[in-house]
């Protein structure tokens, strides 16, 4: 049962991501992205990371997607007039390259690690993550805060009304 849910979710994720590749309407693409991200959140949960699953829903599917949709609304984008990639001549080389890259990654992953003996799923509690985050990684948290501040300042600067 567990495996069936996992592989089903994985399939949904991949299919939704693939759909972004081929749809014309930006709104549709954004919705597919939301589906992919939500499915990914479920994958996280299934893998035993409930905190990250929640964060994924909140930050990606919530905040970031809103930004996308907002921008699409403001720019008033129409369904694109571009030729669908599958019809153009230029899609073969990138697709081939991407395929090779995927195969290479597979080779890389399979030759890498032995499988663990026990078959249970270890759930890592949010408490453990928090202790790790504010224990050994405290300095990185500070750095991340500074990074966000820098991004904030940059966005404010770029979006100011009065041009110099």
């Amino acid at each position, binding site marked *: 049962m567990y495996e069936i849910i996992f592989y089903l979710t994985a399939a949904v994720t991949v299919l939704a991501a693939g759909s972004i590749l081929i749809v014309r309407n930006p709104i549709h693409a954004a919705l597919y992205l939301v589906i*992919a991200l939500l499915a990914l959140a479920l994958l996280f949960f299934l*893998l*035993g990371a409930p905190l990250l699953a929640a964060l994924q829903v909140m930050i990606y599917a919530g905040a970031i997607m809103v930004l996308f949709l907002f921008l699409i609304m403001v720019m008033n*984008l129409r369904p694109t007039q571009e030729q669908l990639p599958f019809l153009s001549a230029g899609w073969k080389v990138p697709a081939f390259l991407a395929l090779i890259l995927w195969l290479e990654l597979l080779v890389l992953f399979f030759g890498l690690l032995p499988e663990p003996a026990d078959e249970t799923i270890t759930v890592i509690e949010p408490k453990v993550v928090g202790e790790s985050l504010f224990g050994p990684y405290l300095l990185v948290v500070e750095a991340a805060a500074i990074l966000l501040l820098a991004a904030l300042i940059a966005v404010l600067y770029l979006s100011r009304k009065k041009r110099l």
Partner: protein
Amino acid sequence: MIPLSHSLIIAALLFTLGLLIIMLRRELLFILMGLEVMFNGAALTAIAAGQYWTNADGQVLTIFLTVVTAAELAIALILVWLVFERLNTTRADNLKLLKDNIDRGPP
């Protein structure tokens, strides 16, 4: 129990799909979406690996990845908006200011 390699295959697939989106689509917004998909492939890798070793580090890494994505996306979106405002386009094909024009000779 899902084997680690299966999670990694899915992650690699997501990563590659994101890359394909970036390479094939011409709209700036689609390119950004492809970027998101790639980021999430990487995040899946980190979490799968963290679970494999039953270690919180994978999740911590993913949290930082999220932070970086948020910062990156905020700036990227405002830049897309600026491009739209200034050049009145959202297509990457039309943004060719960096093209080397051989007929013009070196600058």
